[in-house]
């Protein structure tokens, strides 16, 4: 177990270093980053001054060492737009994204699990066809467009729910549905196919022969095992969640990391975007690391593979 954790830890660190290096060189190779950092109305003197302060007149490997040294101290530059350290901005917006992700995940699970299970049980039945349609439609509807559609129906036409920004519980409804449904289609298909496989396996037959009630067999024996592939694909869902958050927070003016990323893009705030990407990489990699370790702890097959 110790060896497994160590290996995964090293891999995670390598991944973060790779992302940071990629981001660094992309900023340097596509022109002088000064032009990305300086406001448009700055003078040539400002430019020279800025090149000096940032050390951009030095050879690139030296620059990289400075960048790396600063990054290790938690300094990823200052946002042009907000005039604040980018890392601090990231952490001040992080809680808002987490507040949104929890109900969104809940929406995703509450929709995907029952639909996935029932469509596997009644294959070809009405619910199977219906959830198949939902999945196909869900994939075909871009997240931002669904958000706008929900705003149009429930805020503009019916006037039932607020169209965005943080606030009371009602403000959470539309954004969590938008972000949640982003994950539903994938979740549901996965649960359905792994349920189908498990329903066919020996231990389920045994459980039935033993005379266990159908409810116990399905919701306890089958579902538990069917959720394993969902857990293994956790990392992929995390990536989906981040993508969904950027779009959803933009549509609903939700002041989280996703919205911050969008602002960094439209204001061409390179230092901020660079910081957000590196911090997101750190978070994703380490959450995946923790999930993997927990998973290996629960399922010994993984450890020894």
């Amino acid at each position, binding site marked *: 177990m110790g060896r497994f954790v160590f290996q995964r830890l090293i*891999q995670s660190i390598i*991944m973060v270093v*790779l*992302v940071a290096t*990629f*981001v660094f060189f*992309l*900023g340097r190779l*596509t*022109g002088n980053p000064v032009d*990305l950092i300086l406001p448009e109305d700055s003078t040539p003197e400002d430019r020279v001054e800025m090149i000096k302060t940032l050390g951009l007149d030095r050879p690139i490997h030296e620059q990289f060492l400075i960048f790396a040294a600063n990054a290790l101290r938690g300094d990823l530059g200052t946002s042009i737009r907000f005039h604040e350290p980018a890392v601090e901005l990231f952490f001040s917006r992080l809680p808002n994204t987490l507040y949104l992700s929890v109900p969104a995940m809940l929406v995703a699970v509450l929709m995907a699990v029952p639909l996935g299970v029932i469509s596997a049980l009644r294959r070809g039945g009405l619910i199977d066809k219906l959830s198949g349609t939902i999945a*196909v*439609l869900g*994939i*075909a*509807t*871009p*997240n*931002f*467009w669904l958000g*706008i*559609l929900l*705003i*149009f129906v429930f805020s*503009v036409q019916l006037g039932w729910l607020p169209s965005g920004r943080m606030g009371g519980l009602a403000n959470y409804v539309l954004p969590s549905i938008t972000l949640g449904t982003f994950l539903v289609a994938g979740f549901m298909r996965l649960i359905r*196919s792994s349920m189908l496989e498990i329903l066919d396996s020996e231990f389920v037959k045994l459980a039935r022969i033993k005379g266990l009630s159908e409810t116990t067999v399905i919701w306890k024996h089958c579902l538990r095992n069917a959720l394993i592939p969902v857990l293994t694909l956790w*990392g*992929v869902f*995390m*990536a*989906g969640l*981040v*993508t969904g958050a*950027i*779009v959803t927070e*933009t*549509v609903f003016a939700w002041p989280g990391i996703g919205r911050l*990323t*969008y602002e*960094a*893009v*439209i204001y*061409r*705030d*390179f230092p901020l*975007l*660079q910081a*957000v*990407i590196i911090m*997101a*990489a750190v978070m*994703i*990699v380490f959450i*995946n690391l923790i999930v993997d370790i927990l998973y290996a702890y629960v399922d010994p097959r993984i450890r020894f593979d």
Partner: protein
Amino acid sequence: MRQLPWIPIALISAMVIMAVFAPLLTSHSPIEQSLATRLVPPAWDERGSAEHLLGTDHFGRDVFARLVYGARISLIVVVLSLLAGGGVGLLLGIVSGYVGGRLDSFLMRLVDAAFTFPAILFALLLAVTMGQGLNTLIIAISLLLWANFARVIRGEVLALKQRDFIALAKVHGCSPARIMAIHVLPNVMNTFMVLVTLNIGVVIVAEASLSFLGAGVPPPTPTWGLMVAEGRGRITSAWWLTLIPGIAITLVVLAFNLFGDWLRDRLDPKLRQL
């Protein structure tokens, strides 16, 4: 032929015709502004006019014209990014599967990493560093696509490698490069085509989302995602600006996905898990 998916085929054809014959379908320019005819509702609305079938936007540009020319951009992006991203994935998948060993485990690590890291972040970064444009967009979307292609193709190649004709080619003295090009490549083309069709929808959604986030082809070039984004602020007064391009996106993606599913079942049923 009865089982052909006619509705998806009709929708896809409609889009392709729109894209190819855009100048013949509308006399309006998609980018020329006309402040006299701002925010005219679609023709079926009582305030609408027959002149502008789907109404006009806040710059007085004809929505139908923008939709038609936008289809063109979407199709260009689809073709180029699938050629680039799918091509890279195909190449890496074949090499990784056939050569095996350390190269294979390295490439597959990279694929795993690509799956867990949201490619959209790199796409946004590219838009900021390289500037918005068609090239940037193609590179960004290719980054999103290659890993899936590489993974699936590699799996196919691993199975192919065990087959007798590959062993015979080896005995015959074929170089690995020749075997990959002449014996492996044609045998994964079916899978490749299925992957291409299944990913057309992914590309359209990605293009629209990146345009929406201000990282796509820059305005005033009409794209569906940009139309949704631009109309968003006016959803209370001018619903047609966002709803019409949005519906177009959903319908087209739906059509491509259904067509892709059909093709997969036809050509390669074992890919059903995709």
